[in-house]
């Protein structure tokens, strides 16, 4: 005689099967969506990317569209943003973890950072236009765009640095203090080297965000397509790759060009995501060992 195994009622069994199917379905759908987006953009865009496309400026005379100025503008804006946002964000994180004694100030700063990360980019664009372009008289320029992005990326850098600072063992600091080092010296020699991973991770995330940003740049950096050097470029208006994509697709109906830019952006997004993961894992392993 076999022992009676407890059986589930039909309803409970059906519940299990339905939920299992729904979960798997949703997950497959999500994955399929990502695969579709990547393949669609790559297959549609890569054929349009030629050396001429990458290395020339648009010219009405020869009816040629090149995206060199947009590439340069993007590089300039990334550099300018990071140069300003890194000291600000890292400094804020150091203040919060190393100096701040007043609980209220900490809460205030963290709440401000949370608020900043929730504000939509169109609002940043608007305030950037009013404050940097008009009030500070910078006009529509890459620099005004970069400064707008500095505010946008401040919370990101601050948070990643803060996370990595928390991982610096308290005993390191105590050891340095015990040897007679002042606070500033401890920060320079013990704390800062300890938060390199946070700074690098934050920078990668910020670069990704800057590359993808368009609404905040439309009214601050404008959409000119001229090839300039770094300093001339920063003081004049210019479109980044995303803004150029928007203008070519929406205003000019140049879908081939837009597709080419989209493929480049997709490629860069892939690279950035991958490197963020790899860097994260590398630092994790180093910390654990």
């Amino acid at each position, binding site marked *: 005689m076999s022992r009676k195994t407890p059986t589930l009622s039909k309803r409970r069994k059906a519940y299990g099967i339905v939920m299992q199917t729904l979960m798997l*379905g949703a997950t497959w759908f999500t994955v399929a969506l990502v695969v579709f987006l*990547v393949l669609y953009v790559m297959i549609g865009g890569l054929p349009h990317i030629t050396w001429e496309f990458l290395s020339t400026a648009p010219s009405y005379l020869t009816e040629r569209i090149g995206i060199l100025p947009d590439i340069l503008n993007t590089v300039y804006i990334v550099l300018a943003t990071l140069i300003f946002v890194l000291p600000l964000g890292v*400094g*804020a994180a150091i203040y919060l973890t190393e100096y701040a004694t007043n609980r209220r100030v900490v809460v205030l*700063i963290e709440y401000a950072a949370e608020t900043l990360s929730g504000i939509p980019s169109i609002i940043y664009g608007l305030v950037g236009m009013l404050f940097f372009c008009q009030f500070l008289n910078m006009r529509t320029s890459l620099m005004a765009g970069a400064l707008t992005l500095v*505010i946008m990326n401040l919370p990101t850098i601050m948070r990643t640095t803060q996370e990595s600072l928390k991982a610096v063992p308290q005993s390191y600091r105590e050891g340095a203090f015990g040897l007679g080092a002042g606070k500033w010296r401890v920060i320079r020699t013990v704390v800062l080297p300890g938060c390199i991973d946070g700074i690098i991770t934050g920078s990668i995330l910020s670069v990704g965000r800057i590359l993808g940003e368009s609404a905040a740049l439309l009214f601050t950096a404008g959409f000119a397509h001229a090839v300039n050097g770094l300093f001339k470029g920063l003081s004049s208006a210019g479109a980044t790759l995303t803004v150029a994509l928007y203008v070519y*697709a929406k205003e000019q109906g140049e879908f081939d060009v837009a597709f080419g830019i989209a493929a480049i952006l997709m490629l860069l997004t892939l690279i950035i995501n991958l490197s963020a993961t790899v860097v994260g894992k590398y630092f994790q392993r180093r910390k654990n060992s």
Partner: protein
Amino acid sequence: MKQSKSLKRTVERVIQTIFLLLGLATVGSVLLITVYIIISGIPAIREIGLVDFLFGKKWASTATPPSYGILPFILTSVYGTGGAILLGVPVGFLTAVYLSKVAPKRVKEIVSEAVSLLAGIPSVVYGLVGMLVLVPAIRSVFGVPDGASLLAAIIVLSVMILPSIVKVSITALDAVPEEYEQASLALGATKMETWFRVSVPAAKSGIAAAIVLGVGRAIGEAMAVMMVSGNVPNMPELFQSVRFLTTAVASEMSYSSGLQRQALFSIALVLYLFILLINAVFNMLLKGGKKQ
């Protein structure tokens, strides 16, 4: 010796002040944004009248006499966001439960990576794909004259909020104490019942926070929506060309002047108030979840 010590102390104090100022940069930025949005947003509301502005059904900024009612934008933003939540939340939620509770570690890693990629794709790329795939598809499937519509925007937004929903939900589900689940299994519940009737309720405030974060993302998105929604200030209808709060600001900014320009700033103020409210709810949910 004494002098160098006091010098050292002054240096330390100066450096501390510098760090304090750097720390206050975020606070300063929030103040700057708030003050600018309020100051530039109030004049037009005063001139048009709060009720006429918020509840006026007609936006015709370049007509004579102009009409500045933003109810179409508000409703479009609300419906668009609601629709995106309706489509995006079930998919994101179920994916999150699968990844957090069922999936093997390797699968979880790979799919999470794919979801992060979704978050990293620039909004103009979503807009472009929407323009080229979604808009024609809606036109032919539903037989409407123009596919650039509220529906197209809803679909694009639902994809764009997916990563926020999946990630925040996973964090919440991962944090559910294992004892809860073990107790439920020991009492004879199946795995599926345990996950959906024990783990999910235990993580409910985190999942709610994920949804609110999605709402914030959807209501703030401008460029992708601008490219697929047709951008005509109609009252929202699924197959109509519509304009959102965000796109209303963006589409007329470059050529606006006078009262029209000020009205655009007022729209931004309305959007900002929406966002502040959403942020407050989001923080409340996250903090509430932590206290439990």
